[in-house]
């Protein structure tokens, strides 16, 4: 399953809205077949902050572990935020190499 983060907004800053987004996504996540990966696509996102991402991606990472796949992004804020979250969670995200 591919999740377009842009559907939650193009400017993702607030911790509170990150939490809301995580809750809103839970019903969809329940339909994810057990063996299927969840691909996170940041295309279209203009700014991603560590607070929003910490509320959304960190718990998703706990739930899915290596079934969570990040698609590569050129956006500087996305890259910087993913890097700091890897430090917070003390493990790297699985990033799909560009084909």
């Amino acid at each position, binding site marked *: 399953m591919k999740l377009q983060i842009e559907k939650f907004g193009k400017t993702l800053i*607030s911790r509170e809205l990150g939490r809301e987004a995580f809750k809103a996504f839970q019903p969809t996540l329940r339909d994810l077949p057990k063996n299927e990966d969840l691909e996170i696509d940041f295309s279209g996102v203009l700014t991603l902050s560590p607070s929003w991402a910490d509320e959304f991606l960190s718990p998703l990472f706990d739930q899915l572990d290596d079934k969570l796949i990040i698609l590569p992004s050129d956006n500087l*804020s996305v890259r910087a*935020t993913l890097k700091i979250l890897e430090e*917070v969670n003390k493990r790297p995200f699985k990033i799909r190499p560009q084909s």
Partner: protein
Amino acid sequence: MEEKLLTIGQAAEYLGVSLNTLRRWDESGKLVAIKKEGGTHRYYREDDLEIFSSDLTRFATEWIRNGVEFPGTFYCQTSSIFNAKLTKMQSALMQKPGFEELYSLIVLIAGEIGDNSFAHNLGKWPDTAGIFFGYDLEKRIIVLADRGLGILETLRQVRPKLPNHVEAVKVAFTEFVSGRAPEKRGNGLKLVREVVTDQPIDLFFISGDAEVRMKGQNKVFRVTRGQHIVRGCLAKIEF
């Protein structure tokens, strides 16, 4: 040709303050009105108002130090107002030559600092709720400020032994606070510090009497003790 003058009512609307505030500012000399010969009515030149409202750092500093009122156009009472204004700034910054990629890191820094103010003071604002958020993209400056609890008091909820503002600000910008703790301020500010270190972005940040100055090339993160104690936090971002 005679320059067009604004009435005090028009000037109040322009600056987003009350008539009484303008009268007070006139009497104190902060923003002096023009009086036509023999008259008592106050008038203002639009140029003067524009210059007056461009001093973002002064407004923010006077507000958090002394509670002095500032033009309403810079006031974000709620997080959603802040997010809307930030998105507007982002659109303008993206169009600016040289900022086609860097804009997202500048918005990240401003967004993270502004959102911290709301996240950590929700339901706990000591007096005025909300933040000051002003920017001038021509001058390449963004100023944010709040009259909230400040970093020391917020972080003491999870680190009760923090001795002073300087140590608290150091922790906020350099350490990861446990993800299980209710207080997560450290994570975002740590990234702010890293981005400012690596990018052509300067940061001046104060909370309590602690000051952070990261400016120019070879920036070093250091927290020093300033001369004044301010309520809440103030951040000046230059790029």
